[in-house]
């Protein structure tokens, strides 16, 4: 975490000219990013809130919260619980539906001079398709992230991500609807992540996001109740970083398409670990809550690391584990 972020005064870009020569740009399956840092879906609203803290064009891309065909009301409260170096959430993909999303959130976001990745949810393959069809009409979208991995809704979501055949077919159907970069986001709650990754690659995904949250639970020993209304939720934050790194490393060895790594990233060092394991780009999620400047601080830190280590193009780091 850069000192700047901690002191609450991270104004503008890191303008140190000695760092100027580092090329931070990456290409994530057709999505061109000025640096490898985006945010994790659902942790950044639709950008407006964080734009009060820093200019969004400092990031490589913005990933929106999950959007579905109809409005979803999400789960009951309490929706979050803190755990050791992590948190559980059971938001349940609350969102106003694709129409309101387009008219309200997207129209603002697409004026921020930053590529927009729209995270897409559905209860069924046809819902995913319908959302994408509707979004195809909007010119300013840079890529889709297909969330087939949400542990917080009863049907759909994670069930696509735990079965390689279902993952293949929903990806293939969406692929047929769009020429835009299609990123498929996988769940870590599986026995063999490589099998699912290979299936979505075969179905035409341009990139893979890893990882969504890990299924978990918190209990209040005094009240003898689950902390979350939904009882179980998705674990995120530093606690899951080792799990995420392992999955990125494993999947990188099994597919050719680029990876968007996430899970507990708080600092540039964390981001570099993901890139070394095989990620082309990274997303900052839960860390936004701890420090709203996390994402731009990671960008600055990556630039410093590259300058320090004599790396001229950050793409050199991807998979460069010795």
């Amino acid at each position, binding site marked *: 975490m850069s000192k700047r972020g901690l002191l609450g005064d991270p104004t503008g870009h890191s303008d140190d000219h000695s760092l100027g020569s580092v090329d931070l740009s990456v290409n994530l399956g057709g999505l061109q990013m000025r640096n490898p840092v985006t945010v994790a879906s659902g942790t950044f609203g639709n950008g407006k809130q964080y734009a009060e803290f820093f200019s969004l064009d400092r990031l490589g891309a913005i990933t929106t919260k999950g959007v579905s065909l109809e409005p979803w009301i999400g789960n009951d409260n309490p929706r979050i619980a803190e755990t050791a170096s992590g948190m559980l*959430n059971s938001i349940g993909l609350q969102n106003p539906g694709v129409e309101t999303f387009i008219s309200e959130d997207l129209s603002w976001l697409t004026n921020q001079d930053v590529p927009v990745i729209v995270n897409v949810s559905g209860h069924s393959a046809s819902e995913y398709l319908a959302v994408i069809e509707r979004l195809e009409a909007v010119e300013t979208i840079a890529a889709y992230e297909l969330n087939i991995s949400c542990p917080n809704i009863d049907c759909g979501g994670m069930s696509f991500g735990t079965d390689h055949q279902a993952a293949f077919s929903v990806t293939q159907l969406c692929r047929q609807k769009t020429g835009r970069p299609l990123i498929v986001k996988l769940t870590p709650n599986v026995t063999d992540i490589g099998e699912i990754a290979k299936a979505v690659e075969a179905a035409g995904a341009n990139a893979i996001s890893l990882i969504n949250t890990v299924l978990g639970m918190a209990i209040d020993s005094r009240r003898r109740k689950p902390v979350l209304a939904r009882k179980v939720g998705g674990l995120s934050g530093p606690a899951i970083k080792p799990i995420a790194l392992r999955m990125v490393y494993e999947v990188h060895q099994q597919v050719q398409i680029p990876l968007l790594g996430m899970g507990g990233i708080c600092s540039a060092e964390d981001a570099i670990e993901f890139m070394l394991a095989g990620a082309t780009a990274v997303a900052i999620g839960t860390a936004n809550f701890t420090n709203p400047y996390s994402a731009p601080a990671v960008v600055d830190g990556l630039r410093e690391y590259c300058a320090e280590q004599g790396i001229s193009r950050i793409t050199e780091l991807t998979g460069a584990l010795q």
Partner: protein
Amino acid sequence: MVNAEVTYRACDSEYNRLELGSDAGGPKQEIGIVIDNGFMAQTIAKIRLSAPYIAQNTRPGQFVHLRLPGLEAHILRRPFSVYAADARNGEIQLLYQTVGLGTEHLSTLPNGTHVDLIGPIGRGWQPPRDAKRVLLVGGGLGVAPLYSLASTFTTETEVHLVMGAQSADRLICWKPFSTYITEPCLHITTDDGSAGQHCFTTKAVKDLLEIGAFDYIATCGPEPMQKSVAALAAEHQTFCEVSLERRMACGIGACLSCVVNTTSGLQRACVDGPVFNAQEVIW
């Protein structure tokens, strides 16, 4: 939004630069410095922090989102109402109850500790500008956001405060309130009768509402209490605002962890609240 123009009491050193409901500065990250921190009662403590931006921009009812310094495994911030803010010397005060590891740790912070804050956050109290007779109802720590609200009324307004706790030793000190509220308008209740009236706050509210009409009721405290107060207010056709607590991750409107069910759909307690029109809340 009601944009109240208020003339301030002479004795009111706090909030003198703030306007109720005005569009003061939005939330920023600010590193506060602990000036003073200590227990006031059994499990209730007060912390005073130097945090000029927040002190100058907070409106009554808003809160700060505080990162617990030195608790690295506790990754979430903690929301606390701003109890008092002094724009001139750049200080804010928070009242807090030690209910868990975070607040217990908070109570150990020595003076000089740097505390990462985000604030001021949220929609504050929106009393009608011409309220003549108002009732504030605080249960337990719920009085915290009411103190600064009390300070905003002019001498023309008759301000009543009902203040309840389980027992005398858990009662927040009411003395500061006497700056703004005259003795007969101060109604203390305890569940066990160890101080003030031996009843729940709702009983005292009920009695007051039956004696005379109010233009505005503001309440904060345990949710069942707020719900009862809201029901009483509805019964007496009185405009009532509640301040709701929800577990919060981002604290700035991004994560949807803090939603409140209202007649206009799901609202976020952090930025659409924490103060809500009681009649719009679906309990």
